[in-house]
């Protein structure tokens, strides 16, 4: 089982009050090789530790960006993270090859359902119109752009549908991590080795505030 380590950049200001985002995250955080970095927990005052973020990116082969869509874009802290972390000499420019060849998986939740993203819908445009900014950001850094995973109408999604989306997310991540897609853990079944679960500072743990060193 070859494993590619995955860094999951999670940007949600209020994860405790979210419905879909938390479920989705819980579905993947125990996947082997996944390290979650919850930006709003790590940097409540937006003072991003750039070297730490860059080191986490360097160590991973897959970069996952998971966040709710805010005003057709990323939450402000994630945008700030782009500005501060993906800098010349690291992410682009003659010597900026740190992300070169890595895979980028965008996982985004939106309040509007699929009909809202139709020419006659609430947002007047198809969802694909809102993809290019993040996509080009990844491509400019030399990353392979994976098909985005979009969860529509996330906050009123019925439980089974949400579970299905979560399963899809998990499968996708396991594939990216170089592991066979496996069904969700069954009671009594072999639990994923806890030794390989990254416990970086700020790793998302439901119901508990992470401790920053």
């Amino acid at each position: 089982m070859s494993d590619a380590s995955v860094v999951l950049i999670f940007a949600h200001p209020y994860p405790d009050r979210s419905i879909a985002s938390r479920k989705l995250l819980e579905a993947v955080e125990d996947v082997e090789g996944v390290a979650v970095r919850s930006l709003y927990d790590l940097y409540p005052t937006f003072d991003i530790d750039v070297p730490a973020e860059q080191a986490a990116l360097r160590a991973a082969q897959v970069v996952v960006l998971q966040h709710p869509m805010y005003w057709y874009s990323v939450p402000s802290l994630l945008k700030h993270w782009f500005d501060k972390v993906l800098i010349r000499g690291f992410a682009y420019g003659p010597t900026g090859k740190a992300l070169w060849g890595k895979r980028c998986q965008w996982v985004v939740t939106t309040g509007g359902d699929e009909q809202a993203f139709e020419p006659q819908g609430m947002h007047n445009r198809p969802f694909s119109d809102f993809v290019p900014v993040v996509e080009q950001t990844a491509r400019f850094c030399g990353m392979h752009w994976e098909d985005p995973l979009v969860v529509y109408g996330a906050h009123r999604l019925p439980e089974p549908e949400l579970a299905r989306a979560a399963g899809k997310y998990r499968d996708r991540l396991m594939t990216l991590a170089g592991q066979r897609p496996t069904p969700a853990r069954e009671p009594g079944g072999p639990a994923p080795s806890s030794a390989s679960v990254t416990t970086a500072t700020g790793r998302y743990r439901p119901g508990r505030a992470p401790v920053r060193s």
Partner: protein
Amino acid sequence: MLTSTIIYLAAAVICVPLAKALRLGSVLGYLAAGCIIGPFGLRVVSDPAATLHFAEIGVVLMLFVIGLELELGHLWRLRRAVFGGGLVQLVVCAVPLGLGALALGLPWQAALVAGLALALSSTAVSMQVMGEKNLLPTPVGRSAFALLLFQDIAAIPLLALVPFLGSEATAGVSWAALARVFGTVLLVVLIGRFLTRPVLRLIARTGQREVFSAFTLLLVLGIAELMAGAGISMALGAFLAGVLLAGSEYRHALETDIEPFRGLLMGLFFIAVGMSVDFGLLAREPVNMAVIVLGFQLFKGLSLGAVAWAIGVSRQQRWLLSALLAQGGEFAFVVFGVARSARLLPGDWDARLTLAVALSMALTPVLLILYERWFERCAPTNERQPDEIVDASAQVIIAGFGRFGQIVGRLLFASGIKATVLDHDPDRIESLRKFGFEVHYGDATRLDLLRAAGAERARLLVLAIDDPDTSMQLVEAVQEHFPKLAIVARARDVSHWQRLRSRGLRVVERETFESAMLIGRKALEVLGVRPYEARERADLFRTHNVQTLESMLSRWENEAERTNLARSAREQLEQQMRQDRADVERHTGRGWSAQEEDARAPATAK
């Protein structure tokens, strides 16, 4: 009268800048000016003794100013340094000097007087030199000052002792004289404590600046004369008066008024010393005088080195103390004068010793230059430190460099911004100088200090003084004299914040507020609130809190309201807490619910 004044002024104006340009210091310049115009030079002015006597007022004024800076409490803390260290210095220096005099053939009574008199140093010379070199706030400067203070006190019994030892023993210390001494000191204390302030207030109210100046001079000279009449050192009397007025609201005004007189008269004093150098005697007995002066300086210098060790001066600076205090003092002139009239000193000895003292004063700047040369060679790491200070055209002045100001200063320093620091803690100042800060010792509310710190050119004053009253004084002084200087202020508490804001300051922060907010956030986090949310709650709390303060400001400015507010402080707190709660709940309770979030941002999911 007018011609001699013109001669003195011209001599000073020519010689002092010249000496300064040659890096010899102003004292040497004045002394040279005195030598040139004196009876052994161009002979344009005669009677150096009269000039010297008159110019001693400069020393008196200087000690008054020093006294103004020392409050009684501060003086009390110096008691060990003054009486312990001072006594050690006097004994350790007087014994070898007296033995030396004995070896030169003086009778024991004369040797005793000579030893004690030569052990005294010149307050005028060393204080001037220390002031110029900014040494007063350093540990060695403080030690030197304490020793000088003790010498001023010790001079009184010494002068009383001389007639006893003389061959024509006149009546010594009578009970009446003793009673007069104590009576006079008591009178000065009473005047300084109870009479001066109401009179100053009365005069200040007339708004006649020159009358205020006149009264200041009258006060100092009057007290000096009163003390002299009782046989006490004039300088000591003035010092006492200064200490008694140190706590008064007129301290700064007094100081500003005295300052130019002090400077001019001190200059005159040094000129007079230069004039009194008896070059005739020097020409007649060059070998004799060389032995006396060099022996005097060597014995005293070495003894002072030992004293410096005994009173705990750091190793590097022991010889600095020695160089600072090795000279003979102006008291020696008086003592030798009295000794001559008491027929205590045989033959030419009073002239020789007087000359030796004058020459030793001239040697002080030379010794310091030698010390600096030697020290520079021994400690090359400190070589560049003076240069960095000199060219400091700092844009920022930080007043107060305690726990608070330090953080501000370090942040600025880390950002490559040079700041000039005003503080009154000598130890802190020492270490700051090492990092190239320009540091001025003393009370930041002093105008001359602010000016020296470059308040006219600076862009910003960081007001980090902890004491609200001092802080307000500084604000008033800056607003009056340097209206262009922007102020960023630290407030001790809400009422200090109100006072600063009502003076029109825009940037005022309460010193504990932000750190308490941070602790509050951490507490919320430990209780399970997400960091970002804890931060938002804190931000919300801050906004609301500041709004409340701002709205109270206009009411606070109305004095009647203020007393009303003060009375109901507890009630206020309770009301404020209820309001805080309501505010935070309104925004964080159901307020952040999914529906509202969605209404705000349609593309959002929870």
